[in-house]
C-alpha cells in the first residue's frame, strides 16, 4: 500500500475517543475507522468505531454513574464485544454468552447496522471506503439507503437502519466513515472541521451534546410507517425446504421515498434469490420465491414493556451456526472479483448476518406447511381479484350469529334482565371479596318462571308497533321508545289544546283484566287513572279489503268505530277509539277475555285517536260471535 503504514500501527491510539468527539460534535450516528487489514494486505477492515446513534435498551447494571462520554464509549465497546461473541462461532456457544453485556435483542436498527458493518471488508478501490482510499478523495453519499449496491454495498443495511448520508474520507492511511440517519447536503467544511478539530489535535474538546439524543429514528412515529409493504406484498409463501430461514426484509422506516421502492424491491428479491441459490442449500420450487420475514424485535423502540417480554434464548445456538456459515460466505464473496456476484453476496451477507444475529423466537414456522400449499393447503394465495369473486351477502345483518351469541343468547338465560349499568362514575376496577362457596343451581327449576316471562314479553311485543327483532332487549327498547313517543304526544296535546278536559273513567274497569297484567307493564297502568282523555275527532274510515268476510257493519252513528271481520277462526278487528293511557292494555285484555289470541297488533295514535288493527285467532273452542266482540270493544269507543 502506498500509505506505507506499519500494520501494527494501523489503528492509532485514542482514535476511538477522537472518533467519539468528532461524531458527537456533529451529532452524527456513527464513525468507523477502516484500516488496512493485518492479515490480508490490500483489504480494508474494521479498525475502530464509535456509535452515537439511538439505543434501544441498556442492559448493563452500573454501579457508577457514567457520563455521556463514558456511556457512549462503553456502548461502542459492548457492540464490538457482541459482534466478537457472535462471530466467535460455535467454539463455545454456551460459555461465552454471559460475558457479553448486550444481546441481539437489545439493539436498535442503527446499532445493527453498525454491528454488521464490523463484518465487512473492502478491497482497495471497492466499496465506499475502498474507493475513498484508492482515490484519496472524500466521498459524500446522500440517500445511501437507496444507493446502488455497486456504489454502496451496504445500502440495504442502511435502509434498514435509516442511514441516509454516509461520508468517507482518507485518514491516517485508512478511511474514516461517518454516517447519519438524516439527509445532509455535501459540505466539505464539515469534513475539514472534523479532521482538524478532533482527529488531528491531541486534546479533545468536550462535546456539548450527550450521546444518543441527537438522532431520532423515524420509526418511533407510527404514522411514518410506510414502505416495505411492497416487499411483503410480493407474494409471500416461500417455497423453502429444509432449513427454515428467517429472511430479513429491511425493516426500516425511512419515509418519503416511495418512488424508488419498486426497484429496490425487485432488486432485493432478485438478490436474495441469487444469493440463496448460490450459497445456501435452499431449494426453490419455482420462481415465486419471495421474501417474508423481518425481524420485528429490533424494529421496536424504547417503549417500556409493561407486561411481558417473550422469552427467547432458545435459538441462539442455531443463530451462531448460521452466522459462521455466512461469515465464511462473506469471505468468499469478498475474494470474488465479479462485481455482479458481489452484489448478490452482499445481499446475502446482509440477509444472513442479520438473520443469524437476530435470530430469535419468531421463525417462519409456517414455511414447511406452506411450501406445498398448492397441493395440500386448503388456502390459496390471496389476490385482489379474489375480492370481486367472493360472495358478499348483502342485506343480511352483519355478524349475525356472533351478535346472537353475544347479545341474544345471554338474555335467553335469564329471567331477570341485566341492564348494562350506566354508572359511569366508577371506572376503575373494584373487586368483590373472594367468594368461596359456589352456588350450584338448577336452571331447569327456573324454566317455569322464564316461560311466564317470555309470555309477557310476547304480549308486550304484540302491543308495541315497529318491533323489529324478537329478543327481549329489542322488545323493551321498542316499548320504551313507544312509551316515550306516547308521552311526548300526550304532552303536546295537553299543552296545545283548549278543549274541555274529560275525566278518566275510574270505574267499571274489569277487574280480571287488572289481575292479568304482569309486572312488566303494570306500572303503565297504575299511573294512568287520572289522566285526561282526548276527544275523538275522526270517524272511522277504515277500508275493508276482504268483502267476503262476515262483516258486522256498525250501526251506531258516532261510535261506529269497531269493525270485526271473521274468517274461520281468524278474527280481524279494526277499531278506533279515543286514546288515553292504558286503553290499549284494556282492549287487549278484553280481547283476551273473549278467548282471542292476538298474533299481530298494529296501533297508531293520531291526534288523540288510537287506531288499532288486530289480527287474532280463537284459542278455545268457544267462539264468540262478531257481534259479541264488537259489543265488548265498543265500550272503549264510548268512554269519553
Amino acid at each position, binding site marked *: 500500500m502506498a500509505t506505507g503504514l506499519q500494520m501494527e500501527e494501523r489503528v492509532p491510539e485514542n482514535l476511538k475517543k477522537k472518533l467519539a468527539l468528532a461524531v458527537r460534535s456533529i451529532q452524527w450516528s456513527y464513525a468507523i475507522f477502516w484500516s488496512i487489514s493485518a492479515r490480508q494486505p490490500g483489504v480494508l477492515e474494521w479498525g475502530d468505531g464509535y456509535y452515537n446513534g439511538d439505543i434501544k435498551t441498556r442492559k448493563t447494571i452500573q454501579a457508577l454513574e457514567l457520563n455521556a462520554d463514558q456511556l457512549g464509549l462503553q456502548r461502542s465497546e459492548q457492540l464490538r464485544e457482541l459482534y466478537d461473541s457472535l462471530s466467535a462461532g460455535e467454539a463455545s456457544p454456551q460459555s461465552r454468552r454471559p460475558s457479553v453485556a448486550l444481546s441481539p435483542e437489545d439493539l436498535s436498527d442503527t446499532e445493527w447496522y453498525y454491528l454488521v458493518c464490523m463484518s465487512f471488508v473492502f478491497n482497495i478501490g471497492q466499496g465506499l471506503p475502498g474507493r475513498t482510499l484508492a482515490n484519496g478523495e472524500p466521498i459524500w453519499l446522500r440517500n445511501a439507503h437507496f444507493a446502488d449496491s455497486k456504489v454502496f454495498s451496504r445500502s440495504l443495511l442502511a435502509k434498514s437502519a435509516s442511514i441516509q448520508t454516509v461520508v468517507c474520507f482518507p485518514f491516517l492511511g485508512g478511511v474514516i466513515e461517518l454516517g447519519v440517519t438524516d439527509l445532509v447536503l455535501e459540505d466539505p467544511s464539515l469534513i475539514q472541521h472534523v479532521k482538524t478539530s478532533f482527529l488531528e489535535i491531541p486534546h479533545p474538546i468536550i462535546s456539548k451534546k450527550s450521546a444518543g439524543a441527537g438522532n431520532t429514528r423515524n420509526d418511533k412515529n407510527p404514522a411514518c410507517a410506510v414502505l416495505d409493504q411492497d416487499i411483503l406484498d410480493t407474494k409471500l409463501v416461500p417455497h423453502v425446504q429444509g432449513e427454515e430461514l428467517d429472511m430479513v426484509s429491511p*425493516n426500516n422506516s425511512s419515509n418519503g421515498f416511495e418512488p424508488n421502492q419498486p426497484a429496490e424491491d425487485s432488486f432485493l428479491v432478485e438478490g436474495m434469490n441469487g444469493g440463496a441459490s448460490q450459497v445456501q442449500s435452499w431449494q426453490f420450487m419455482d420462481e415465486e420465491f419471495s421474501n417474508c420475514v423481518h*425481524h*420485528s424485535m429490533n424494529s421496536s423502540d424504547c417503549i417500556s414493556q409493561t*407486561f411481558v417480554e417473550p422469552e427467547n434464548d432458545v435459538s441462539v445456538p442455531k443463530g451462531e451456526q448460521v452466522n459462521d456459515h455466512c461469515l465464511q460466505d462473506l469471505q468468499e464473496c469478498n475474494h470474488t472479483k465479479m462485481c455482479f456476484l458481489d452484489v448478490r453476496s452482499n445481499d446475502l451477507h446482509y440477509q444472513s448476518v442479520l438473520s443469524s444475529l437476530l435470530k430469535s423466537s419468531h421463525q417462519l414456522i409456517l414455511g414447511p406447511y406452506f411450501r406445498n400449499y398448492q*397441493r395440500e393447503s386448503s388456502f390459496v394465495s390471496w389476490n385482489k381479484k379474489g375480492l370481486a369473486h367472493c360472495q358478499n351477502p348483502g342485506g343480511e345483518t352483519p355478524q349475525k350469529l356472533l351478535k346472537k351469541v353475544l347479545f341474544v*343468547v345471554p338474555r335467553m338465560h335469564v329471567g331477570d334482565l341485566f341492564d348494562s349499568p350506566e354508572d359511569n362514575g366508577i371506572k376503575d376496577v373494584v373487586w368483590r371479596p373472594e367468594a368461596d362457596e359456589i352456588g350450584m343451581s338448577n336452571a331447569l327449576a327456573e324454566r317455569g318462571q322464564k316461560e311466564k316471562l317470555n309470555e309477557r314479553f310476547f304480549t308486550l311485543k304484540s302491543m308495541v308497533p315497529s318491533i323489529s327483532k324478537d329478543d327481549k332487549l329489542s322488545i323493551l327498547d321498542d316499548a320504551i321508545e313507544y312509551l316515550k313517543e306516547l308521552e311526548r304526544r300526550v304532552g303536546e296535546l295537553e299543552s296545545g289544546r283548549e278543549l274541555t278536559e274529560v275525566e278518566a273513567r275510574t270505574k267499571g274497569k274489569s277487574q280480571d283484566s287488572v289481575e292479568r297484567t304482569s309486572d312488566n307493564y303494570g306500572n303503565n297502568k297504575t299511573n294512568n287513572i287520572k289522566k285526561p282523555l282526548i276527544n275523538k275527532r275522526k270517524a272511522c274510515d277504515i277500508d275493508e279489503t276482504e268483502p267476503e268476510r262476515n262483516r258486522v257493519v256498525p250501526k251506531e252513528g258516532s261510535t261506529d268505530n269497531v269493525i270485526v271481520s271473521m274468517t274461520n277462526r281468524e278474527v280481524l278487528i279494526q277499531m278506533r277509539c279515543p286514546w288515553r293511557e292504558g286503553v290499549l292494555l284494556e282492549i287487549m285484555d278484553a280481547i283476551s277475555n273473549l278467548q282471542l289470541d292476538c298474533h299481530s297488533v298494529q296501533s297508531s295514535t293520531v291526534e288523540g285517536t288510537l287506531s288499532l288493527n288486530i289480527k287474532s285467532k280463537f284459542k278455545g273452542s268457544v267462539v264468540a260471535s262478531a257481534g259479541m266482540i264488537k259489543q265488548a270493544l265498543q265500550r272503549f269507543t264510548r268512554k269519553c
Partner: protein
Amino acid sequence: MEHPSQDSLLKHPNSITYESPYPLYALAISHSPHRVAVGSFLETFNNRVDVLSFDPETLTLKPQLPALSFDHPYPPTKLMFHPSTSSPNLLASSGDFLRLWDLRDHSAEPLSVLNNSKSSEFCAPLTSFDWNDVEPRRLGTSSIDTTCTIWDVERGVVETQLIAHDKEVYDIAWGEARVFSSVSADGSVRIFDLRDKEHSTIIYESPQPDTPLLRLAWNKQDLRYMATILMDSNKVVILDIRAPTMPVAELERHAASVNAISWAPQSSRHICSAGDDTQALIWELPTVAGPNGIDPMSVYSAGSEINQLQWSAAVPDWIAVAFSNKMQLLKV
C-alpha cells in the same frame, strides 16, 4: 386455485367437513387424542354438544364411537378443552353457567356447574371464557354483567371477580398466569393484572365511542400483540400493548364484517380471520405496514358466512371453521 364445492364433499385431501343437523357455533379441539367438540346454535333451551374424533393421519373426522354427545342448556357461547395434555377429557362450556364436563368413553358427565353470583342462584350470562394455559387451574369468564370472574376450577371456587368494564364484557383472553385482557360493549380493550386488581390499563378504544368490541385474541407467541374486532366492521385491529390507543395495524381486506380471529399457535406473525364474506384469511404481519394496507397471505372461501374459527395448538397445521351447519378442518 379452484376449490370444489363444499357441499358435495365431506372429505377432501386438504379439508375435512363435518355436517351437523344443527347450525354450529362453538368449537374446541383437544390434544391427543384429537377430538373436536362442536356446539349447536339453536335459539332454544335444548342444544347439543357433539364430540368428534379427528385423525390427521387418515384425515378422518367422524362422530366418536360410541357416540359421545350431550345436551347443553342453551347454545354454548364457547367450548374449550383443558389446555394441558394431562387432562384431555376435560371440556368447559360457557353460557348460562360455566360448566365442566368429563368426557368418558360412553358419556359426558357434568362435573360442575359454576355460578359466579353469590347472591343469586343465577349466574350472570357468560359471553366467553379463556382457560389459562400457564396456570390451568385458572379460568376466566366474561359476562354481560360487566364483570370478569376468575375461577379456580380445581377447587371450584371464585378466585376473584372484577368489574372490568362499563358495559357488557364480550371476550376475555389470558396473557400470562396472572394477566388477562378483555373487550367490551364499552368499546375498550383493558388489561388486568391479578396482582393489582385496583387498576386496569386501557389498551385501545374503538374510534367511534361505544362501538362494541366483540372478540379478542392475544398472541401467545408474542405477547406484545393482540387482535380485536369491532361490531359491524371488516377490520381486524392489531394492537401492541406497549403502544396503547394506536393500533399497530388494521387488516381491512375482508369484504364484510369479521366474526372470528385466531393467532397462529406456532408463529408470532400469523393470524387468521374469518367473516361474513365467507372467507378465512391468513395474514402475515409485516414489521411496517405500507401505505396501502396489509394484504393477506392466503385465503379460503367457505360456502357461507364463517362464524367461528379456531387455530388450535393441539393441531397447529389445521384451522377449524364453522359456518352454517358445517364444521370444517382446513389444512394450513
